[in-house]
């Protein structure tokens, strides 16, 4: 018996270690054990709240609508084309600019209440980014006016390049016999005299 003392101690140590590891993996500790395991009570998504596969039956649709805090009529999943959307709802593509600025939202800067379903592209629709609010004119009218203006300006600049100010009325007159030497004339030969004026 005396010789098995180390064996008993080792086995007890191993059992203790296993129990500690089990306690840690269960989480819901406090203080240092929470720190070590990285999990705390009431954190993370519960099993039923995570997105799931595309709902095929009406019961699945109803359960998914309930999960996402939508009514069954409002709930519309993405088409099942194998792109990985699952049962996530397809919300209308409206940005946060369109929401009432004067209503008392839970998150005033995001104009969102607690528990509201989040759009798939919510980060593109925050108030600093894409604005989908209705414009004064139709999109085509705006594009026509802007690009028409730019096109007109570019065309007029092109014409202005072709016809600059002060159109010359006579060929330009150069000194030194029409720059005879500078244009590579023979220095030995006497150039013909060029007279640009008459007094």
């Amino acid at each position, binding site marked *: 018996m005396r010789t098995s003392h180390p064996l008993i101690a080792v086995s007890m140590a191993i059992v203790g270690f296993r129990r500690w590891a089990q306690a840690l993996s269960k989480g819901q500790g406090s203080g240092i054990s929470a720190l070590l395991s990285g999990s705390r009570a009431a954190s993370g998504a519960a099993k039923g709240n995570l997105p799931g596969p595309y709902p095929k039956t009406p019961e699945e649709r109803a359960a998914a609508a309930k999960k996402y805090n939508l009514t069954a009529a409002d709930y519309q999943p993405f088409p099942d084309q*194998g*792109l*990985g959307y699952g049962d996530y709802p397809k919300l209308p593509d409206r940005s946060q600019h369109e929401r009432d600025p004067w209503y008392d939202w839970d998150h005033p*800067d995001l104009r969102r209440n607690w528990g509201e379903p989040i759009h*798939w*592209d919510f*980060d*593109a629709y925050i*108030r*600093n*980014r*894409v*604005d*989908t609010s209705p*414009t*004064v*004119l139709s*999109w085509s009218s*705006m*594009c026509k*006016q*802007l690009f028409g*203006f730019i096109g007109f*300006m570019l065309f*007029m*600049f092109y*014409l*202005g*390049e072709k*016809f*600059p*100010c*002060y159109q010359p009325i006579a060929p330009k007159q150069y000194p030194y016999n029409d720059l005879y030497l500078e244009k590579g004339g023979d220095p030995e030969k006497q150039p013909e005299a060029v007279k640009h004026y008459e007094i």
Partner: protein
Amino acid sequence: MYPTSLVLSSTLLMILIFLITPVLNTLSSKPLPQNWSSTHVKSAVKMSFFTSLIPLFIFFNNGTETIVSSFTWMDLATFDINISLKFDIYSIVFTPVALYVTWSILEFASWYMHSDPAMNRFFKYLLIFLIAMITLVTANNMFQLFIGWEGVGIMSFLLIGWWHARADANTAALQAVLYNRIGDIGLIIAMAWIATNLNSWEMHQIFLFSNNMDLTLPLLGLILAAAGKSAQFGLHPWLPSAMEGPTPVSALLHSSTMVVAGIFLMVRMSPLLETNPLALTLCLCLGALTTLFTAICALTQNDIKKIIAFSTSSQLGLMMVTIGLNQPQLAFLHICTHAFFKAMLFLCSGSIIHSLNDEQDIRKMGGMHRLTPFTSSSMTLGSLALTGTPFLAGFFSKDAIIEALNNSYLNAWALLITLLATSLTAVYSLRVIFFVSMGNPRFPSLSPINENNPLVINPIKRLAFGSIVAGLLICSNISLLKTPVMTMPFFAKTAAIVVTLMGFLVALELALMTSKQAFITPSLNTHRFSNLLAFYPNIMHRTSPANSLTFGQTIATQVMDLSWLEKSGPKLMISLNTALASTVSNAQKGAVKTYLTSLLLTLVLTTLIFNF
């Protein structure tokens, strides 16, 4: 060793020390004194201004210019980067102007922001901005210029988004950063080209060695950089949006100093621009388009700060036109004179806004001439200087530019629309004065509206003084490198003032017509086009972010998995293998004995043939 150049470099280095010391003081753990902003920061800037007058007067007297090179940051075999400060005409004249304007704005800001709990931090940001701006203008190499460039961009972001809990201010700050970033791409392209082809980032070396080279690519990069920083057409929406920041920020950054950094870069790089007609034409056309477009937009805005912002943008376009006319010194002159009257216009508007309990809509102002006579008179003075009234500050630069324009042999359309924009400047200036100062008040009576605070009046007075004499002072003391044309037809000489007067008269006529309603419903098409900035922000700020964000989101969430797991990974294996297997198995009909017989026959035949 000449004493004048020593005095020059000593005073200019002292200026940098005066400005950096308060910023370094904020790094200690001791709390700042109560009036740190007025006692330390404003005094530092005021001292720096008076110190900067010494090199200014030495330069006016002797024409002394200095280059100070110190601390080597990086020293490769043939490429080195030093701290190298260039004190030539541009930096020696611009530094006192910037310091004078900043001193006035800081004094104003100590009144405007007095109820802000983080006022010390505000002043610190403004001071860091000023240091970055001075780094930019005194830079003798591209690297230092880039440090100043990015510095002013970052401080602009922090200051526009000063009221960071306001979503519109955040959006405006983001817009400023993103549009400036697009310009920075151009600057980096230019720097990379210069580093690889000219083997140095020092300005004098760039100018010396670029003589016979084709500089189109770096010049296009520099033009893109200037377009981003100076809000030229295409990269302009950030400047009116930047009015979300406090008025001192608009006055300092977005009218006098930061936005001229792009034009300043063009002025610095003008020896490179001179030889490239494509770059000059591009500058001319871009500047002309900007000045007309933003002047059209300014006609129908209702926010006083936005009108002044568009006015700034229009003047920046005019400066770009001047660069395109190959007159960098005239552009620089306009930068200096513009700083005075534009900052004064912003300070006056800030004073009026605060007096009217933060009302910024000009339709709800009116009659301010009787309530705040000094402020409205200064505003009128600033507007007159802006439109180029003879012998005020703006006249010397603007009239010289228009004269150079009329005497140049360049793009006729660009010249025509610049003249039209000059006329529109008078129109929107009169509109502001008409709505703000003239007529009767259109707001409920508020009290007290008074002008008895010297913190407001003294800065405006100082800038008013500058708006009157600055043009004359600078012009009488510098000698222009390019001879201006002195003899021209009468109409060419008087074009600027005739066009401005016509603009004033038309605007006055239209404004006085508003006392009676002419039509039952007004014609809205042109008004909408102008008021909504030709729909440029509506179109651009919806399409490109939407496209890039959804593109990024799709790639990150779907395309990665789709490509690696389905198109190129296991599912591809499955589809290939099943295709192969079904093809091969369909081809096999299972007639094994026939195949063996044909194999044997072929073997026998080949053996017979090759043996005989």
